[in-house]
């Protein structure tokens, strides 16, 4: 009971002396000074860090929830699923499985992503790249589907209840009609101006289906029709995409899966329905992890802001704390009190961040959908407007974790100020002399105004840390990825940030003496001050170091990536004009007759084709892209290793993308088997090429080899070379006329490059926003640290005013100190940013996305970033100084007496 009473007393003490004050004076409206602003900004910074991190998780959770809900709507009660590549597999497998004694029921399915021929412009730049012009069409066997309790068959769904008029009972079996989900009907109304007829592109022709009814409880755009009708309509007779399996009673799932796997032809797998969800989550993991890491760095910068505002608060309350100590408060109680304040800032920041995360998620979903701007999830949202809040996931684990992150930022940010408060000597504190030095960390506080003796100490401390940290950074960056996440590389980035902050005093010791030549008095005093008190630079510029390092590394990485993508596109598209049957559609394609028509167009000198399809190499691997096209001519191949020509008459050549080579761990001269037409076909790797289009790998084979092995003569893309004097505009018009307005996509290589880079920039938009945010937080750090410094040195500035310093000269002195401090931060930040960029490019990107890129430094951007931060910091320091010193020099000097 006594312990309980003690705890209550302690809590009451903390509440009265610390927390109440934090609420009323620092966060409330009673005191709208710099202290209030700093504390509020600290809360905001923590909230933003928590919100960004949590929002990434919420958006992803929602995407996965939607995906898995959609998947379950079709899988119904399936125990296992047989899945193949996007092109499907021979339906003979279905007959084998239907006779299997261990399977109670089987349900075949054909999935085709069909193009909706809308009146869209033909020219690529005029259309949005993600504009949904395709519709997923499922061909199902109604009678088989009934055995799987599929929601598709619910009331008002495909199976009409008994007693309906006879001509409607089997409407689902009719070849010329389809059932649409509500969102598919909405899409039809938007794209085709009505929802009574569904027009789909097959090859380059358009077919029409009647809309027979609406599918219940289906969230995404979807059309469902009879499987036989779908096979016929899309020219896929004898082909299935998936077979759902239900096991007979008493059959062991895993044993059955193992046995059935032996029956599967090449490129076809049998797996549990949930495997698809895991595969989809794995697709986005690298992108999510990278965004979450950015959010964590924002939170880290917020932690620095908590540190500087708490330091300011402790600095101002030094007399109060000295009095409390004189009255009998223990160091531990004082430490606990200041930590409790930091904890409260963390709690308020976390709670606000959690609310903000939901608002942010709503905003992100409204703008980019669930794909976070990266294009992983194409499905539009289920709900719109305020109703969207209802579908946002609760995610208690993610909320709990991010709450803890925010709390930790508050507590860790307050640790040093709390220790400084606990170290206050009552006698000195009451006199309030040397206020600044008392509060600074012990290792740096020892360094006084003179160089001699303690310059040795200044060097030793960071250098010994350098000797420890540098090898650790190298070792961590060399660690392999853990479950696809470059944990070692991220650890190396965190250590690099720490090293950069610790290098600040070293840089100050090296750089500041070199600036001795400047005669201006304010400059000389500012330089001497920083040289004598490098700890001020550490405290003030730590936030700048972190934010500049982050921004610089991202700038270098994004610039390198953009430069490499541009270069890759230039090599990939050497032709004059490119034609595509449809974006992301299985139903639209060119045939040989179309090709002949294109070749006959006046001005066309050569035509090269591409057939693109997705294969499944194993049950656990995501789909793998196969391209059948020439390696020279109107298509380019950005080779990293190997050669374009292949002389071995016995083996078939294959050029593997860099991502494919890394994922499959194959090199030049190795063999690779691909499932084509239900058989494993062996190829020899003749080259490794750079490919930024397909993260999970791609292989390129010669078109003649593909046709010989598969018999498939369909074509997705066509590249043209034109006569030297042919006018592109006229030729585009002729081609558009040939196929009909809006039927095919026609684009020049420059347009494709411009559009691709636009998509690239949009993908990194969220990254740019987070970078800017951390820089703003870093500048707040400068503002609050200078508020601490000016408050601590009020007497010094007051004395200078007595000696004849004008306000302007004092303002310039502080601006120089701010600018110099920021310059040191920018120097360390840029150095760390360069190292971090190398880690991002050579380790994180390779381990996360399996692709490499060339190192390209954005000199102008980095210079602008550095100068802007220095200029802003100088300006902020001066503004803060003007505000804080408005009271004049008298009180400052008098307060010290």
């Amino acid at each position: 009971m006594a312990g309980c009473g003690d705890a209550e007393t302690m809590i009451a003490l903390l509440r009265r002396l610390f927390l109440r004050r934090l609420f009323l004076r620092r966060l409330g409206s009673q005191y709208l000074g710099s202290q209030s602003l700093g504390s509020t900004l600290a809360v905001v910074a923590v909230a933003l860090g928590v919100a960004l991190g949590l929002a990434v998780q919420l958006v992803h959770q929602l995407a996965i929830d939607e995906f898995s809900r959609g998947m379950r709507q079709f899988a119904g009660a399936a125990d296992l699923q047989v899945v193949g590549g996007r092109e499907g597999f021979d339906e003979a497998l279905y007959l084998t499985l239907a006779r299997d004694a261990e399977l109670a029921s089987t349900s075949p399915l054909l999935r085709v992503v069909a193009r909706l021929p809308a009146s869209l412009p033909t020219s690529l730049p005029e259309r949005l790249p993600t504009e949904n012009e395709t519709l997923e069409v499922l061909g199902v066997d109604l009678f088989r589907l009934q055995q799987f309790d599929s929601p598709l068959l619910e009331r008002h769904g495909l199976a009409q209840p008994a007693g309906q008029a006879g001509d409607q009972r089997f409407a689902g079996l009719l070849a010329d009609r389809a059932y649409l989900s509500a969102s598919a009907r909405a899409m039809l109304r938007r794209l085709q101006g009505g929802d009574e007829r569904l027009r789909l592109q097959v090859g380059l022709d358009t077919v029409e289906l009647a809309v027979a009814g609406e599918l219940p409880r289906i969230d995404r755009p979807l059309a469902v029709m009879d499987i036989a009708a779908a096979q016929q309509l899309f020219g896929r007779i004898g082909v299935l995409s998936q077979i759902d399996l239900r096991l007979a009673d008493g059959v062991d799932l895993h044993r059955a899966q193992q046995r059935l796997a032996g029956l599967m032809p090449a490129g076809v797998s049998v797996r549990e329905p949930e495997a698809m969800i895991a595969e989809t989550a794995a697709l986005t993991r690298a992108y999510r992890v990278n965004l979450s890491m950015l959010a964590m760095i924002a939170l880290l910068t917020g932690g620095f802001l908590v540190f500087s505002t708490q330091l300011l608060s402790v600095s101002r309350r030094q007399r109060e704390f000295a009095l409390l100590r004189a009255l009998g408060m223990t160091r531990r109680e004082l430490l606990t009190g200041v930590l409790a304040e930091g904890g409260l800032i963390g709690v308020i920041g976390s709670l606000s961040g959690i609310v903000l995360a939901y608002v942010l998620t709503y905003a992100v979903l409204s703008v980019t959908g669930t794909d976070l701007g990266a294009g992983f999830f194409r499905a539009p949202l289920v709900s719109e407007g305020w109703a969207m809040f209802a579908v946002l996931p609760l995610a208690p684990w993610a909320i709990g974790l991010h709450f803890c992150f925010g709390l930790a930022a508050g507590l860790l940010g307050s640790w040093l100020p709390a220790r400084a408060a606990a170290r206050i000597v009552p006698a000195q504190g009451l006199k309030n002399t040397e206020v600044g030095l008392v509060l600074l960390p012990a290792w740096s506080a020892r360094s006084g105004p003179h160089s001699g003796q303690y310059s040795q100490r200044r060097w030793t401390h960071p250098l010994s840390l350098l000797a420890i940290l540098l090898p650790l950074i190298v070792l961590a960056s060399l660690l392999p990825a853990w479950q696809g996440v470059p944990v070692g590389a991220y650890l190396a980035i965190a250590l690099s940030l720490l090293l950069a902050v610790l290098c600040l005093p070293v840089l100050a010791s090296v750089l500041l003496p070199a600036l001795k030549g400047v005669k201006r008095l304010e400059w000389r005093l500012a330089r001497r001050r920083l040289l004598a008190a490098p700890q001020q630079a550490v405290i003030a510029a730590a936030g700048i170091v972190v934010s500049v390092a982050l921004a610089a590394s991202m700038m270098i990485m994004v610039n390198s990536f953009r430069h490499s993508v541009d270069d890759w596109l230039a090599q990939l598209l050497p032709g004059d004009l490119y034609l595509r049957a449809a974006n992301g559609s299985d139903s639209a394609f060119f045939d040989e007759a179309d090709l002949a028509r294109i070749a006959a167009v006046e001005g066309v000198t050569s035509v090269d084709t591409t057939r693109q399809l997705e294969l499944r190499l194993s049950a656990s691997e995501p789909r793998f892209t196969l391209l059948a096209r020439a390696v020279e001519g109107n298509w380019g191949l950005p080779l990293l290793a190997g050669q374009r020509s292949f002389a071995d008459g016995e083996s078939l050549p294959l050029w593997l993308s860099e991502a494919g080579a890394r994922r499959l761990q194959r090199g030049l001269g190795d063999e690779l088997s691909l499932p084509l037409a239900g058989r494993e076909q062996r190829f020899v790797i003749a080259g490794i090429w750079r490919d930024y289009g397909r993260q999970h790998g791609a292989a390129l084979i010669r078109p003649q080899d593909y046709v010989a092995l598969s018999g498939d003569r369909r074509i997705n893309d066509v590249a043209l070379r034109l006569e030297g004097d042919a006018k592109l505009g006229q030729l585009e018009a002729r081609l558009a006329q040939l196929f009909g307005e809006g039927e095919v996509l026609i684009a020049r290589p420059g347009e494709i490059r411009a559009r691709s880079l636009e998509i690239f920039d949009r993908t990194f938009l969220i990254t740019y926003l987070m970078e800017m945010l951390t820089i703003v937080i870093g500048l707040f750090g400068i503002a609050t640290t200078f508020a601490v410094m000016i408050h601590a040195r009020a007497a010094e500035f007051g004395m200078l005013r007595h000696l004849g310093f004008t306000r302007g000269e004092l303002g310039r002195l502080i601006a120089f100190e701010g600018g110099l401090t920021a310059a040191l931060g920018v120097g360390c930040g840029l150095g760390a940013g360069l190292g971090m960029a190398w880690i991002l490019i050579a380790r994180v990107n390779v381990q996360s996305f399996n692709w490499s890129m060339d190192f390209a430094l954005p000199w102008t951007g980095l210079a602008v970033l550095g100068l802007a931060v220095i200029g802003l910091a100088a300006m902020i320091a001066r503004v803060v100084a003007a505000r804080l010193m408005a009271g004049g020099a008298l009180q400052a000097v008098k307060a010290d007496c």
Partner: protein
Amino acid sequence: MLELHAVGKVLPNSPPMPPRVLFDELDFALAAGECVAIIGESGSGKSSLLNCIAGLDRIDQGRIVLAGERIDALDDDRLALIRRHQLGFVFQAFHILPHLNVLDNVALPLWLLRVDQAAAAVEARAMLAAVGLGSRAEDAPHNLSGGELQRVAIARALAHRPQLVLADEPTGNLDPLHAAEVLDLLLAQVRVRQAACVLVTHSQRAAARADRVLELVDGRLRRC
């Protein structure tokens, strides 16, 4: 050298309390090279008067004339220049910049006057020698005792040869032995440099060393 004519200053108070009259119709004159001590009870307005003379605080009525120039109506920057050229300060709490060494602290007023650094160092060294700290020029301030720091402050106050030195409780932080030494030094150096001096102090003993002693009572100066 310094003239105060009918100077008045009122301190605002929180309502309903009436404003407090700090000094009223205060007249005072100080000749070049003269040293006057101002004594008075705590809160009598001694330091405020010193601040008004230095142009760091504004008066509400009257005129202040320093070296023939009326300063009470000048703007802030002009007042700063007057302090830079004509005034020297000695504070109770020393106010030595911790990041400059002793020599640079003394040279600081000369730097403000844009004196060449080498010349400023020569002058500062001479001043330090005069206050008995010639051998401590390169030391850091934290290595000096309180008495030594105040001697540095005296050197700094006189380094640029001001016409008027304002000393606010210059011995307030020192023990009696050091206080006497420092006061002797201050007055001696002021006289050597032919500067005038206003010494604000609580100490009757210290005040007795001045040419004249005035007491600030009820807002008026009274000769003791």
